[in-house]
């Protein structure tokens, strides 16, 4: 297996060569990937907001933002600056502690989940054994923050929105976890790196989407519901609930919900691309190409190119999925709350159970194709 480049190892070696002890070098290394990922996640908000506005505009034959920066690219920055300088109001009868804590509890798990998102063989903050399970666990914290925000606002719409959000996320978590379980069953590991590696080698043909088409759909639908994207945005359905749990929020506290929802969308898209679309794999196997051209796989320049292509492929796949999510937003009408819960419990859950059983059966029958 191609090991790819080991940035951590090279960095530590370089520091040791400079005369530092290995321990200090490792300590110096620790914050680097975290900061990089944090910055990348924050930049991804700008890109996503811009994409959302431009694609929405195009789908409605409008132009969209165009004065803030070239082609309106700085619109998200303008929005952010506005939110930061806006007065931070806590309603008089709200519960100030819970009111402040709510948005933070919604946002922090989303950023924490980037711990396990790999962009290459070694391009991940931590390759821990629980891997994808950590993401499922972390995404289950968010409902607490939503309930907190909804309850502390002292507003009936907020409370209803918070309850809906919590009901929605706990009911769609189960089909999502079952869809992930089917993938994990095939790769014999919870680690995201192993899941991608299991899909590698055959280019686009090896991706899990061919082995798990139903799982892919279930996961994508559940991920949309978890992100509260249309058609599942009823916790903040403005026609019914003003803005749901966000009703009483202004300024940066509202900004945190905003940031959280977009980062969550990008994160879900990244996870889908890792679980089903081969992560950082190029549609044509790089090993095969390098073999065809007669280049050694371990040539340093080839590894750099592979790593760059890997990062680009991961991000590209994620943004293609974001694009589909935005298109879906303008295509599908919002479902009702009873339809939402019906769909989750009576359709997605049985289908994902059947999918899991089928995967297990196929794994036993064709251990070659479905991971022995």
């Amino acid at each position, binding site marked *: 297996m191609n090991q790819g480049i080991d940035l951590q190892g090279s960095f530590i070696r370089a520091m040791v060569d400079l005369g530092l002890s290995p321990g200090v070098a490792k300590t110096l290394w620790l914050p680097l990937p975290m900061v990089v990922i944090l910055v990348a996640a924050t930049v991804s908000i700008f890109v996503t907001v811009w994409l959302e506005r431009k694609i929405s505009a195009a*789908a409605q*034959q409008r132009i969209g933002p165009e004065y803030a920066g070239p082609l309106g690219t700085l619109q998200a920055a303008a929005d952010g600056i506005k939110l930061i300088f806006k007065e931070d109001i806590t309603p008089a009868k709200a519960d100030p502690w819970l009111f402040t804590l709510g948005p933070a509890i919604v946002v922090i798990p989303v950023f924490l989940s980037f711990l396990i998102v790999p962009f290459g063989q070694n391009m991940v903050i931590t390759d821990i054994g629980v891997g994808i399970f950590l993401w499922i666990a972390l995404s289950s914290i968010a409902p607490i923050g939503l309930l907190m925000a909804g309850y502390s606002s002292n507003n009936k719409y907020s409370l209803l929105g918070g309850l809906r959000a919590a009901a929605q996320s706990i009911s769609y978590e189960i089909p999502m976890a079952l869809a992930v379980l089917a993938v994990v069953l095939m790769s014999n590991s919870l680690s995201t790196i192993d899941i991608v590696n299991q899909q590698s080698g055959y280019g686009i043909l090896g991706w899990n989407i061919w082995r798990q088409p139903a799982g892919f759909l279930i996961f994508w639908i559940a991920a949309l519901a978890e992100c509260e994207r249309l058609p599942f945005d009823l916790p903040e359905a403005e026609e019914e609930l003003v803005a749901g749990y966000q009703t009483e929020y202004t300024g940066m506290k509202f900004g945190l919900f905003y940031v959280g929802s977009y980062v969550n969308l990008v994160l879900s898209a990244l996870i889908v691309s890792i679980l089903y679309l081969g992560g950082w794999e190029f549609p044509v196997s790089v090993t095969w190409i390098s073999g065809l051209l007669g280049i050694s796989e371990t040539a340093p320049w080839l590894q750099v190119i592979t790593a760059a292509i890997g990062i680009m492929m991961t991000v590209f796949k994620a943004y293609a999925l974001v694009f589909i999510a935005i298109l879906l937003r303008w295509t599908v009408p919002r479902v009702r709350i009873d339809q939402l819960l019906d769909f989750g419990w009576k359709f997605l859950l049985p289908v994902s159970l059947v999918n899991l059983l089928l995967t297990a059966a196929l794994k036993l029958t064709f251990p070659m194709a479905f991971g022995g």
Partner: protein
Amino acid sequence: MLGFLKQVGDYAKESFQAAKYIGQGLSVTFDHMSRRPVTVQYPYEKLIPSERYRGRIHFEFDKCISCEVCVRVCPINLPVVDWDFDKASKKKNLKHYSIDFGVCIFCGNCVEYCPTNCLSMTEEYELASYDRHELNYDNVALGRLPYKVTQDPMVTPLRELAYLPKGVLDPHDLPANSRRAGKLPQEILDAMPQDPEAAEAKEAKD
């Protein structure tokens, strides 16, 4: 057992149908993305209102004979006509005239029925104000002429869809003297077979 299987089959069929419809919807949305924006960049670009546009009403004070027909034909008797009777000349003397455009629905009945044509429709539609009482126009305000879009140096005038040449949908960057699609009203009149009576009347007038 068979009934149950049939139920499952129907359910699966319905699911696939729903998925198909969502796919069709997505393709429509996707198709819209490649279409040209229909946006008019409003403060910088404005559409030229059509000839029969019913905008703010213009009022000519000197022509008014205070007959109050406009009040009577108005659905809500909106125009306020303030006059007194001049006994010397035995005529009504108009003092004030006002229309509240916050209440007016621009139906154009007053313009239609005004016997002296002192009321007319203009193409002005930018009536926004900070106070709704500012919408109550008196005879001075009603007598102002609107600013034409085509004469405003800050504004790019754009033609409306019906005034574009044949096959053109984008009003931007039209050549200067491009003709609208179809015949102009005058041309239709000219092309009509002249009936003798009308021709005679015309000659007599000349």
